[in-house]
């Protein structure tokens, strides 16, 4: 059972009062309880069950402009008392920084809207097992599938965020997720692919048969890949990975990267960064949204932001600390983006594939080859060749490389956006990247 708000509030208040008593001038605290149950299957048999019951307290104390933090999983008051003392001691001898402070009072979230983020339904492990059996039965139908793994996780979470300026808020959230990994084999060589679903409400979960089928189909399609010649070519990013481009944008326009001067998009505010057909939105108030929130990790009200409008960079992602450095107000993005997405493009998926004679279609990238400072990008990739609009053969052991500044300006979007994750993008074409192969 997830603990109620009163229980968490009591601990939050205890932390604030005791910190003040020991000399803190300001205090921020978050108290979290989460319960998670996971069942996993392998080759149609139970493999693992895992139950997690976790508490956490994150406390930050200020003495004027000095700041220090502690985190603990032990909520007993005797433990908290010792840790608060330790935190205040450290705060007093930490050098001060004029930008350290709680958020401005008038920016704080005033009311908590029910965004439909909590489903109290408990899905017992027996039901999870039935679900996973169906996933794996579907996934293993084809004899080319030699291994399947599937998992179901149910997560319930409750939290309170409070500070010494009187802010106190929190709410419950839930998450159900299910995944299937399928391994295919032909002539001794294996390929692996997956499908994954994640929802706030149990009733919105994909059908188990669908999860199993997609994972198996994708793994089979990848069999017998070729390595292609190095060349400059248009690269299409499958929806599963096109959202990664938005992740890069989010890192590059975070106030910390801008203030520290370590972003390839520094000084690009109000400049054209994407083609003028492109709009990028971050909306925290989507009902049942996986990235939805009432306020950010400092308690600041968050509202929908147009990050990019008609190709022009309009907003950074700003928290209190780096906002002060930049002389900008927090826009409720401490903790990053919420539900981030590209607005749909014009071309259908099919038309995009047909827009040139030949493309490379990428379904997976590996490695961490993006450099936010220079914009240089180089990652391992696998996918398919597209010829005359058709996926012709699988491709692997290649890399794709470019520079984000140039890549952003050469993006064409399809119109197949789906809101499946917290960050979502339609299928996306980047005209001309360098592919390294043979």
């Amino acid at each position, binding site marked *: 059972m997830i603990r109620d708000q009163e229980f968490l509030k009591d601990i939050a208040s205890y932390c604030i009062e005791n910190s003040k008593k020991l000399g803190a001038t300001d205090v921020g605290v978050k108290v979290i309880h989460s319960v998670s149950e996971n069942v996993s299957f*392998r080759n149609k*048999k*139970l*493999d693992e*069950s*895992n*139950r*997690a*019951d*976790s508490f956490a307290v994150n406390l930050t104390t200020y003495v004027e402009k000095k*700041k*220090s*933090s*502690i*985190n*603990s999983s*032990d909520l*007993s008051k005797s433990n908290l008392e010792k*840790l608060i003392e*330790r935190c205040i001691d450290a705060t007093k*001898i*930490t*050098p001060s*920084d004029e930008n350290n402070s709680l958020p401005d009072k008038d920016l704080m979230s005033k009311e908590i809207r029910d965004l439909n983020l909590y489903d109290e339904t408990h899905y017992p492990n027996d039901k999870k097992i039935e679900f996973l059996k169906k996933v794996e039965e579907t996934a293993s139908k084809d004899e080319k599938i*030699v*291994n399947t793994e599937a998992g179901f996780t149910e997560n319930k979470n409750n939290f309170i965020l409070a500070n010494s300026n009187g802010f106190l808020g929190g709410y419950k959230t839930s998450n159900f997720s299910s995944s299937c990994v399928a391994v295919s084999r032909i002539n001794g060589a*294996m*390929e*692996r692919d997956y499908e994954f679903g994640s929802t706030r409400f149990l009733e919105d979960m994909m059908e188990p048969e669908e999860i199993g089928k997609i994972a198996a189909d994708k793994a089979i399609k*990848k069999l017998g890949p070729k*390595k292609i010649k*190095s*060349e*400059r070519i248009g690269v299409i990013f499958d929806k599963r990975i096109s959202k990664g481009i938005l992740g890069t944008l989010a890192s590059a326009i975070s106030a910390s990267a801008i203030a*520290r*001067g*370590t972003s390839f998009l520094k000084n690009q505010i109000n400049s054209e960064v994407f083609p003028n057909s492109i709009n990028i939105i971050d909306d925290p108030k989507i009902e049942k949204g996986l990235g939805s929130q009432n306020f950010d990790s400092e308690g600041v009200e968050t509202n929908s932001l147009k990050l990019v409008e008609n190709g022009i960079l309009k907003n950074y992602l700003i928290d209190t600390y780096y906002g002060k450095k930049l002389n900008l107000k927090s826009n409720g993005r401490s903790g990053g983006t919420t539900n981030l997405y590209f607005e749909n493009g014009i071309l259908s998926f099919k038309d995009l594939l047909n827009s040139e004679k030949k493309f490379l279609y990428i379904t*997976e990238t*590996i*490695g*961490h*080859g993006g450099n936010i*400072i*220079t914009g*240089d990008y*180089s*990652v*391992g990739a696998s996918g398919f060749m597209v010829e005359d609009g058709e996926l012709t053969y699988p491709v*692997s*052991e*290649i*890399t*794709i*490389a470019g*520079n984000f500044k140039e890549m952003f300006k050469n993006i064409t979007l399809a119109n197949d956006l789906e809101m499946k994750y917290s960050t979502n993008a339609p299928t996306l074409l980047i005209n001309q990247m*360098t*592919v*390294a*192969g*043979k």
Partner: protein
Amino acid sequence: MSNFFKETDIDTSQAEAIVTETLKNCDDGELYLENHKSESIVLDDNKIKSSTYNSDQGYGFRAVTGEVVAYSHSNDISKESLRKSSDNLKDTLKSKKGTYNHEIPKTNSKYYENINPIESKTFDSKIDLLKSVNNYLRSKGSIVNQVTANFLGEHKSIEIIRSDNQILKDDRPLVRFNVSVVLEKDGKKETGVYGVGGRQSYDDYLKDGSWKDVCDEAFRIANVNLESKPAPAGEMKVVLGPGWPAILIHEAIGHGLEGDFNRKKTSAFHSLMGQQVASEGVTIVDDGTLHQRRGSLTIDDEGTPTENTVLIENGILKNYMQDRLNARLMGTKSTGSGRRESYKHVVLPRMRNTMMLSGKYSQDEMISSVDKGIFAVSFGGGQVDITSGKFVFNCTEAYEINNGKIGSPIKGATLIGDGPSILKEVSLVGNDMKLDPGIGTCGKAGQGVPVGVAQPSILINKMTVGGTKL
């Protein structure tokens, strides 16, 4: 006697009774208790950006029968919580029957001292050192655009209570000190990162001004990169420098030799035991017993003493890395490779310090044998797809080789290869094996654990370099 029940409503013998009762029809399992203290102090942009102290304690209760693992963890160490976990485990395994394997090897060896690095250096002196790092690097001139430096220290105490009332204990210190510098020249910005660490106190790595060496190395790398040109694209010869570039070994073959992937037959290596998987002259070990190294452990997270496991000997695949579960199911013994990130995580077979041993060639011989290729000296991270065997890693310092001579530095590029075949492409093994500086963290199934790597310089006949220049 356990140290974990002092301020709780349960004592050691009551906990032991719950463990014994829960595991009586199981093949294996234990109650794992952990107390973890850690700190992070970060200097960034001329300021102390954050100072954080973390205190975490909890248990992970595991029951294993056949291939099934039941796990329950909580940070509430109490009679009620343990009972609830026990019920949960018994319910998962209710239709199974196993025989508890009591055998667990003993050890008197210790590969690190029980010190708490957080307490063994004062907070003030850590702050002072971070400020000195900032001043030292910024005094190198106005091209220094940004300096970040941080201390990460931890002390972890673990206890493993097995079904026969055996209690196995370990106390593990770990530190890491990192410096990152951004240089700017003629509108171009580049980063250099360097760090040191291991299972000793901070001062063992930083005394006598050796922190300046860390700063100098970060500065040198950034400076080299300021002069870098676009990297080439395509297949070519690659010379890897000694030390940290051994993450190639870690990604390319290390993960593929972990017991779980081979038992499940999802590793590209699962049918290759006893076969030639590398060129002659290539020997690779995974060693948990090196003193004070980041990847070393006195006992693993199931209580098995670690060892030096030979993975590949003179090109022949000899052993996988095993935890107790996978060893039992594959009819072999644990190699002391059962690890978990924390009490919140199940045990998996993992690497410790993965090393390719020295051969007989000099680095100069390798470079002078290459007409066209690259010389890779330092890397960022890497990743592998276990099943297809494809792996990547990112160069953070690399040079072109033209006609046997080192040329200009090149921009960071990803290198991609195929795990099962890459070691057959190793044509020369150097005589200069070096350990990495103690900074590696390996991720698997969402769990990060500290690891080490080592290798000599090696020449690889053919790898794909993912640059932009055709």
